[in-house]
């Protein structure tokens, strides 16, 4: 019996975007995956992201969220390194 999976979009910016070599991933993850678990999955699949993940903030659908937030199908997830505007 197969676990239900959801489809999400994950966006990257600045240093982790450059490390990854792209600004966006389309991913299928198990239903019930939290933001924190997603960050863990990403680090596993893309070791090049490791130096950045502990500083990441995550936004879902353009709002900052905590690591316990459960992802839903179609979510627009953004991995935000420390900001530096101004």
């Amino acid at each position, binding site marked *: 019996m197969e676990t239900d999976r959801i489809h999400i979009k994950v966006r990257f*910016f*600045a240093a982790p975007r450059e490390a990854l070599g792209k600004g966006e991933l389309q991913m299928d993850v198990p239903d019930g995956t939290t933001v924190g678990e997603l960050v863990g999955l990403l680090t596993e699949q893309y070791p090049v992201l490791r130096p950045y993940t502990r*500083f990441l903030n995550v936004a879902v659908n353009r709002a*900052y969220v905590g690591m316990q937030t459960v992802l839903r199908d179609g979510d627009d997830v953004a991995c935000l390194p*420390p900001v*530096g*505007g*101004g």
Partner: protein
Amino acid sequence: MKLCEITTAEISVDEVVSRLADPAIGAVITFVGVVRCETDGRAVHHLEYEAYPEMAEGTLRQIGEQICARWPTIRQVAIVHRVGRLEVGEISVVIALSSAHRAEVFDAVRYAIDRLKEIVPIWKKEVWAGGAEWRSEAVG
């Protein structure tokens, strides 16, 4: 016209101030961020700003709303941040606050720039002679 905007075009302070036009205002304070030739002793060649624009404009608007809630004498807040490649001397950001009188706007604009540097999803890469680095207020 949007009060808060992420743009790739050159920023005019006059144009940002004009977004606040209202016969009841008597004072506008602006903070103008300019690309410096030097940070921490390193000669900057140019900067590259990157934003998450769909979110950054909303975050800028939130800062504006928080200011109006906290300082009732502030009438409106306009914030325009440029992204892309910027040369030394070019304007990266203009924050403009309007009020009927001059008191209180100073504290509010300081709050605006501090929050902008803390929470708005915009990133800055410094490019100098020997390399480049993404910089933030928070780490490094």
